[in-house]
């Protein structure tokens, strides 16, 4: 049967469908086909019928009889039926063997589980990352059908998913996947190809080094950089890495530095030191060396650092010059952060001695570094140096205080910072001493108020599973162990309510009075603080001061009732726990508060508390 002719006719009727059947009458292209159909029609009935169909379609409609549209439909219907029997199924060419890979994956997961992951990896929207990581944990990516999706995920617009696929999902398939990815790697490509390359390096191990080396030689800049970084740990490629570290392109040098830093070979370190000392690539080398923990290199760099600091200008005369020197010195801080050696001890002592010079040059970062370094040193000499420093600039007072904490007993610490200064400051409150006082209190607050990390479930809303993280105050036991309790009097005196709350303890009547006073002050103030932490702290403080539940809870209830502006997004953990201790009789009072709750979370918490109270009734 002449399939080509049928296809031709199909294209013609398709054209008429698009153009409209009214144009069919006398259509010359259709007319041109007619003779062939009539000729074939003599032998095959189907062609005869098709020919008749064409003929009737070509006739102009006279307004009676079958409309052209119907005739077109009839002809097409017949034609389609014929075409359906003529579908070609044979391949073009002889099939060869399929190259298969032994990944030994199965297909045991049901549709409902897979569909969720497929949707997560083929659409955009929130919550996808969790679905993917959960699925990976469940071992779902060992299902064959998720493999292409995992590979495609390297290109996911949400980079966390792409990274997760690169570092976790794909390497879990083992070396076999590396082979497949190598075949499909486009070394001229961009970001997703870079991820592919990193996956290959991770999954393929030493087997694929040659391919990676190839990519490092011939790929696009991004690919080359990524490939070079992968070669760091393999000594064979050291000569190549050394060569790349002098490449013209910055990205290549950068990658080579990183690779040399991870490799950690003596030659590599020589090269890194050389590049750092040469100043041109100093920042690149600094970023690379951060990842290496080589002490010899750090020591060599420390010596160089000292040398350059000594050479720095004595006075800030030439601003341009000062800045230029600064930009060269700054990378040292990056490289040497967290390092500790005798050279650095000496260096930072030098910085403190030369405080005036470096301050005038505007190199405060170095002075800060020195303060941190000395604070961590926890030695008598460092402490003394810090004492000098804070005298010169009160902003280093916290370092001084924290250094003291490491060296002194709680009693000594109190006497040094609380006991002695109290009288001085009482007499004359100069600007400087007020500043120091504030710094002291802030430093203590930092250590006491947000010391304990608390993770808890939102039990009040079980439908929507989620966790909250809060930073709470240090527990009374820990305060007692680490601090002198006399601080409490000082806090009252200096009027620091938060710290009074934390340090309050039974038997200290004054602190309770102070807190109650604060509470009523808050009530009277015209401009109330919209600070709901205040209430949480006060009630915790009152509890710590030994106030018994009936009194405490009644007080809390009445505050909640009277403070119309008290509208937290969420009651803090401590307060929520206290609310759960409410007597059952409070439930109706709490219910009356519900309409005032503006926020979903606090309302849900209140409702939960009410339920709990009711069930106790």
């Amino acid at each position: 049967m002449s399939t080509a002719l049928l296809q031709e006719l199909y294209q013609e009727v398709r054209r008429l469908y698009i153009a409209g059947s009214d144009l069919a009458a006398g259509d010359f292209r259709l007319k041109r086909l007619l003779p062939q159909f009539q000729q074939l029609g003599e032998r095959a009935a189907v062609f005869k019928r098709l020919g008749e169909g064409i003929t009737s379609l070509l006739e102009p409609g006279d307004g009676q009889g079958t409309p052209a549209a119907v005739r077109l439909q009839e002809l097409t219907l017949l034609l389609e039926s014929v075409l359906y029997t003529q579908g070609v199924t044979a391949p073009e060419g002889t099939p060869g063997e399929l190259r298969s890979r032994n990944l030994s994956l199965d297909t045991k997961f049901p549709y409902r589980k897979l569909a969720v992951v497929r949707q997560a990896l083929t659409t955009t929207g929130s919550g996808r990352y969790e679905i993917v990581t959960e699925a990976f944990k469940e071992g779902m990516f060992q299902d064959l059908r998720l493999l292409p999706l995992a590979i495609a995920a390297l290109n996911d617009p949400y980079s966390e998913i792409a990274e997760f696929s690169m570092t976790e999902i794909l390497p879990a398939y083992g070396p076999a996947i590396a082979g497949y990815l190598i075949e499909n790697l486009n070394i001229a490509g961009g970001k997703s190809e870079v991820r592919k390359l990193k996956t290959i390096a991770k999954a393929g191990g030493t087997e694929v080094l040659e391919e990676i080396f190839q990519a490092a030689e011939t790929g696009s800049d991004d690919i080359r950089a990524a490939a070079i970084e992968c070669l760091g740990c393999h000594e064979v490629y050291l000569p190549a890495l050394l060569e790349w570290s002098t490449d013209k392109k910055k990205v290549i040098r950068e990658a080579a530095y990183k690779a040399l830093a991870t490799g950690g070979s003596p030659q590599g370190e020589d090269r890194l030191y050389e590049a750092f000392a040469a100043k041109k690539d100093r920042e690149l080398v600094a970023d690379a060396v951060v990842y290496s923990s080589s002490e010899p290199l750090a020591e060599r760099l420390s010596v160089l650092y000292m040398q350059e600091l000594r050479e720095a200008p004595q006075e800030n005369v030439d601003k341009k010059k000062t800045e230029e020197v600064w930009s060269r010195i700054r990378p040292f801080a990056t490289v040497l952060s967290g390092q500790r050696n005798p050279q650095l001890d000496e260096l930072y002592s030098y910085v403190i001695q030369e405080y005036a010079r470096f301050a005038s040059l505007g190199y405060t970062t170095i002075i800060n570094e020195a303060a941190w370094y000395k604070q961590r040193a926890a030695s008598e000499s460092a402490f003394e140096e810090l004492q000098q420093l804070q005298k010169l600039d009160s902003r280093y007072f916290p370092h001084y205080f924290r250094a003291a904490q490491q060296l002194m007993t709680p009693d000594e610490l109190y006497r040094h910072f609380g006991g002695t200064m109290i009288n001085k400051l009482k007499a004359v409150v100069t600007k400087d001493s007020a500043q120091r006082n504030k710094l002291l209190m802030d430093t203590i607050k930092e250590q006491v108020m947000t010391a304990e990390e608390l993770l808890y479930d939102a039990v009040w809303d079980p439908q929507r599973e989620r966790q909250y993280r809060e930073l709470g105050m240090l527990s009374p036991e820990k305060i007692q162990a680490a601090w002198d309790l006399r601080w409490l009097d000082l806090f009252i005196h200096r009027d620091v309510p938060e710290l009074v709350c934390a340090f309050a303890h039974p038997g200290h009547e004054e602190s309770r009075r102070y807190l109650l006073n604060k509470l009523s002050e808050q009530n009277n103030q015209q401009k109330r603080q919209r600070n709901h932490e205040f209430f949480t702290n006060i009630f915790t403080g009152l509890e710590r001061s030994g106030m018994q539940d009936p009194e405490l809870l009644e007080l809390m209830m009445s505050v909640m009732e009277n403070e119309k502006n008290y509208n937290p997004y969420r009651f803090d953990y401590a307060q929520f726990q206290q609310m759960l201790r409410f007597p059952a009789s409070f439930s109706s009072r709490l219910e009356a508060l519900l309409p005032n709750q503006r926020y979903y979370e606090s309302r849900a918490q209140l409702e939960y508390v009410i339920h709990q109270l009711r069930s106790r009734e």
Partner: protein
Amino acid sequence: MPELTSSYVDSLAPNAAAIKNGQGLVRKKSFLQLHTSENGELLFGQCAGSGKTPYECSVDFITPESPVFRCTCPSRQFPCKHALGLLYAYVEGQAFTPAPVPEDVASKREKVEKREENKAKQAAEGTESKPKKVNKSALKKKIGAQLEGLDLLEKLVLSLIRGGLSTIDSKTVKTVQEHVKQLGNYYLSGAQTQLRHFALLLGKAEDREEGYTYAMEQLTRLHAFIRKGRVYLTARAEDPELALDHESTIDEWLGHAWQLSELREYGLVKENVELLQLAFYSYDDPARQEFVDLGYWLETAGGEIHRTVNYRPYKAAKLMREEDSFFELARIPLLYTYPGDMNVRVRYEEMTPRAISDADFDKVSAKASRSYAETLKKVKNQLKNPLSDKTPVVLLHAASVGVTEGGQYVITDETGTGLVLEDIPSLPQGTLELLPFLPATTLKDCCILVMFEHLLDQGRLIAQPLTLIQGGSITRLLY
């Protein structure tokens, strides 16, 4: 009680969210009490909910193959997450303390027993339900309306063809959509779906050229439907006593939803059948306004490929059970078959699962078609009927699976006839990309379930592989 595994519990859940929520209850330790009856047939417990009093939930395995779920929660999802959570807790190995059967469960069990007794009694007495009386005048009126609807549809179709597809703009699409609504008044829900499908084809502006091909095919299909429907309805209008057509799909096209009792009446049932699911997928059918869960099953005795279809209308989708892949063999005492072509739709009310044995795999392999020429003849024969299912599914035996230099995947039968594999447009996702990841042994002397589709504009008939069976293991490429 059947052996409880977490995948078995998964299969009981109405949807994936219910699985997650049920497991969440266990993880959050929401179960206040976990009990089992002395004989272990009943699991029950208390689960904390958002309400004041905890929910009492239980799972009753008094008839092991169809567990009964009970819960005092107000959820309309069935089984609810509490009952599922109870089972997950059991699977996890949490301690269930023995306790007497709660009163309300005992009384409910009694009621069920009584109902069963009554049923048995009725069956024994042989009182068959009276045949439904047909309201002839109402039926005549309905058929009249349907014929009127067909006229309306025809008028629209012809006017569209007169004007040509190229002149169709958003205004025309709107008119078509209005007609879709109107057809609802003429008891022609099947035609409504087809016309909506056409409207959707027009609305899609992605690939106009391909769109024209599909739109044109849809128009001829509507034409064939109108013609056949009119003949059929005219015959029925003249003779209201005439039975439904239980051999062709015309009634379904007109919008008739077959009831199981009707199928039984026409003898469209089979007894004691074993079905093995070979492929499954679920898709959104905007023309039907429903989600469709489609399963392809091999009847191990006869070798036919049947399909199960579960429609979940958008409006009720949340509350309906979403079907899932099924990995065991289903033993079905009574299988209802719909009128249809190669892959008839089947339904069943009762089923017990059984693990697949090696003997079953031998049967499967024996049922696979070994001559592509013969199969293709059958497939083409079905395709040429304008109202037929255009994507038939068959099980083929392949001597080998290979790839040509041009990258065409090809299966070859024992006589050396090759058949091109390709991803077909009708399926929501491709499967060919998975073939290179299969071990070489799977690709020789294997059985492949494929779905055919004819590409009219290319004149090619292609097949997409759905599932591969080889060496006692089933590799599902779809789901």
